């Protein structure tokens, strides 16, 4: 079983829809949770990160962590065609700065 599971998609939604992207994990020691966005032929760029449980909002993006269920989500409101990309969840323990575990990524397409 992988430490981090992410549905690969592809996920296709119309412009303006709310998008929900999710990951589950098995290691209860994970404390930092991140979402990266990767455009085609580019490296991943950090979108958001949260420490421990709770919600974090940044513009149209909201990250949620539910440690009791070992489940994290990224919500995108008012989705735009420019949001079309692969979204990678990632997580690490408190002490292991070098050891980040990545999900395999969800490919998202926003239809105009």
């Amino acid at each position, binding site marked *: 079983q992988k430490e*981090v599971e*992410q549905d*690969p998609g592809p996920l296709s939604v119309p412009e303006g829809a709310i998008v929900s992207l999710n990951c589950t994990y098995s290691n209860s020691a994970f404390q*930092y949770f*991140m979402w990266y966005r990767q455009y085609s*032929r*580019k*490296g*991943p*760029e*950090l979108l958001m*990160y949260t*420490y421990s449980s709770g919600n974090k909002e940044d513009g149209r993006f909201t990250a949620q962590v539910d440690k009791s269920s070992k489940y994290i989500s990224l919500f995108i409101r008012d989705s735009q065609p420019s949001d079309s990309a692969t979204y*990678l969840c*990632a997580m690490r323990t408190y002490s292991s*700065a*070098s*050891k*980040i575990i*990545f*999900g*395999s*990524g969800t490919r998202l397409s926003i239809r105009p």
Partner: protein
Amino acid sequence: DVKVTQSSRYLVKRTGEKVFLECVQDMDHENMFWYRQDPGLGLRLIYFSYDVKMKEKGDIPEGYSVSREKKERFSLILESASTNQTSMYLCASSPGEQGYQPQHFGDGTRLSIL
């Protein structure tokens, strides 16, 4: 803005060749990383370095080595390239301070081994 530059975007090499992938960062970061990215497998850590001349193995170091002679430069070496090393290779860097410090990625080198 942090800039992580990988020397080649696309590279084609032959089986058995020694291959060098170069990465340079301009933010004086202590930590540097090499990952490979394959469909369905996500990013997997090959090696990382937390200081000049220091290195540690990641999850999949077999068939690879690294060199960090200067703080800003981290090289990945395929000692004898094989077809199963065809992949996207991503370099990243991060500061060495405690607490959360995000990794900044380059745009990757797509390597094909024929």
